[in-house]
């Protein structure tokens, strides 16, 4: 039943696909500042900002730097992981889900929450530093992506979400 509900919603309003993308910001409360969605090739599929007073780089440079940071942090956490005995070499590209991954980091001005799906979709949500665990809301955003973007017949994968 739930499956039918989801598919009928998309078929009723295929033009209104930006509308389901808006709730992530409102759903996570006033705390969400920036949201990035990358695919496994590093293409930025979606970028939203709600509160961003500081912009040091132009958008494409900013997206590249963010993807690069996540890529390096992934290999860093996979290598430094103190629990797993068998670790690969540092700098070798990892498959999605391979090695120990991180789910958030915190600085004095922001907190970055990260989730990677098995297909290599990366969701990044930047919030206020004192927000709690956002893993569930990232999962929720991923579900919205699956329901309203992947199941949309007019969407070609690997292109920015419109």
């Amino acid at each position, binding site marked *: 039943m739930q499956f039918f509900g989801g598919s009928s919603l998309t078929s009723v309003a295929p033009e209104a696909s930006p509308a389901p993308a808006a709730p992530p910001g409102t759903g996570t409360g006033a705390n969400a500042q920036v949201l990035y969605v990358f695919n496994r090739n590093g293409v930025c599929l979606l970028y939203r900002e709600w509160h961003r007073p500081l912009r040091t780089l132009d958008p494409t440079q900013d997206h590249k730097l963010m993807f690069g940071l996540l890529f390096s942090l992934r290999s860093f956490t996979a290598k430094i992981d103190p629990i797993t005995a068998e670790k690969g070499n540092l700098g070798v590209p990892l498959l999605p889900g391979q090695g120990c991954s991180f789910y958030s980091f915190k600085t004095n001005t922001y907190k970055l929450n990260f989730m990677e799906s098995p297909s290599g979709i990366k969701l990044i949500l*930047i919030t206020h530093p004192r927000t709690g665990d956002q893993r569930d809301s990232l999962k929720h955003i991923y579900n919205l992506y699956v329901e309203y973007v992947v199941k949309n017949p007019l969407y070609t994968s690997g292109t920015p979400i419109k």
Partner: protein
Amino acid sequence: MALAAIYSLFIINKSGGLIYYKDYGSAGRMDTNDSLRLASLWHSMHAISQQLSPIPGCTGIDLLQAHNFDLHCFQSLTGTKIFVVCETGAQNMETLLKVIYELYTDFVLKNPFYEIEMPIRCELFDLNLTQVIQKDRVALLGR
């Protein structure tokens, strides 16, 4: 090693070079080259995280939470970074980092034979560090 609260400790100088590394029982092999590379990688990621901040005044990553461990980092005003890899959800790590920094200033910087920004080889520092980490482990066991 009943309760290994801390897995490893790194101290990085202001240009990203590893000057102190100690392992407290993490699994797998990590040779000298790996630890040097990890240290310089952390140094650059710390710098990139400052550039990506949506709000001015960012000083870099304090805490990295992964599925198997937490990493707490402390940066001194002179740019020296100290970071520990510990169990997930370990408490009081900021205090521990400050204590380690205090030991660094007392036993490394005040050592007349120590050359600044060079690898730390000070017996007294090693001795006091071991004591602090042991004490921390005991304190964690008591809770």
